[in-house]
């Protein structure tokens, strides 16, 4: 009886210890990071696009990116807080040499950018895709195509249908947008949010929702009702 009591007491103690351990483990699980790289010719507006997404505005003045610039934005998707880590890469060869390996390491998604007012930047996409494939980026890594500078309507050189055909051929989603036009801001956000949603769906982690009611532990995976996934 005493033993039983002792045993029950020991069991309860173990359970409470486990609960504490579990809570601290939960706390230690950190916000997931999705690494998204932005690739494309120099001057297509990669820096402006990433700045628009992370900073919410269009930079007054930009210099050519040297090596890479890191930008981060925390978003909430289906109740989970996720850090979107955007790698704004350099478009100029001399500023990206010896960096390329690092760009593609453990990348979760790739954004290919071209300038809708410069046909050559669209033609060069083939080279960028080749480079990406050359770095053993898995086919499961989502890729999107972004045509930037749509605000320059009278200078457009790359027709939408041509871009769409290209995107289809390479199994990519196409976004035509403008980092400059404030009205397009949501569209820019949706590029990254869409990727984040896709990544979340792909790499779904347990959504730990722990409820405690006088020693009762309830673990469930019900998604948060408010979701801001644009897809």
């Amino acid at each position, binding site marked *: 009886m005493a033993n039983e009591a002792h045993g029950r007491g020991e*069991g309860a103690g*173990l*359970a409470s210890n*486990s*609960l504490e*351990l*579990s809570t601290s*483990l*939960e706390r*230690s*699980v*950190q916000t*997931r*990071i*999705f*690494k998204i790289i932005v690739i494309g010719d120099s001057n297509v507006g990669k820096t402006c696009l990433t700045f628009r997404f992370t900073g919410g505005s269009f930079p007054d003045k930009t210099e050519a990116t*040297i*090596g*890479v610039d*890191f930008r981060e934005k925390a978003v909430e998707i289906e109740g989970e807080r996720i850090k979107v*880590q955007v*790698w704004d890469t350099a478009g100029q060869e001399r*500023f990206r*040499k*010896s*960096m390329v390996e*690092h*760009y*593609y*390491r*453990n*990348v*979760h998604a790739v954004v290919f950018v071209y300038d809708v007012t410069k046909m050559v930047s669209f033609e060069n996409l083939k080279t960028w895709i080749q480079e990406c494939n050359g*770095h*053993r*980026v*898995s086919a499961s890594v989502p890729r999107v195509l972004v045509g930037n500078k749509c605000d320059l309507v009278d200078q457009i050189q790359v027709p939408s249908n041509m871009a769409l055909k290209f995107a289809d051929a390479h199994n990519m989603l196409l976004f035509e947008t403008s980092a400059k036009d404030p009205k397009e801001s949501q569209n820019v956000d949706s590029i990254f949010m869409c990727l984040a949603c896709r*990544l979340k769906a792909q*790499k*779904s*982690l*347990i959504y*730990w929702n722990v409820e405690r009611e006088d*020693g*009762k*532990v*309830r*673990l*469930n*995976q019900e998604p948060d009702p408010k979701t801001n996934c644009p897809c």
Partner: protein
Amino acid sequence: MLNLHLEVWNDVERGRTQSPNKNGVLLQSQFNKKTPSKLHLQLKEEEHVRQKLAQKVSELTSDLYLKEAELLYCHSQISRYRSEALLLAREAGSLKNHLAEYEYQFECQSKELAALGLEKKTLREELEVTCQEKEELLERWMEEKREEAERINKHNAALERWNSYAGRLNKRLYSRLRQQTWPTTKSQIIQKDLGDQPSPKND
């Protein structure tokens, strides 16, 4: 002269034969007195010389007029040239002054040029050094970026590993908790496979 003599002779002969006029008489009488033909010839000669001289005089007079006119013209020219020369001399003087001024300026500018050349040389050297420094700085910046990228990649990988590890531990913990007899606990454990977490693919 021979022609003149012949002419005079012929005149004398003609007077002897046909002219009964007073002159002829006189001539004849003169001739008759002392070698008239010779005198006549002399007269004629002198007459001729006189005529020639008269002509010469008139020629010389007209020449003189001409020369006088020319002289006048020359005088006017001289005065014109003189005033021109004066003007030119004055101009030459001022040009000389200008030249001296320009020479001075040239000298100053030469010196300035030399100084500027020197400055340019030093600036070029400085530029070279700055370019070199810029290149080095760029290289360092790239190196920094490379290291930062490496650090972030490592951090991302560590974070993924840690999350995966913590998840696995939690899973194990809850499966153990489930095994415990816990009459008051209504546990509902729904877990997805933690293997689905993002994991380093390209490492």
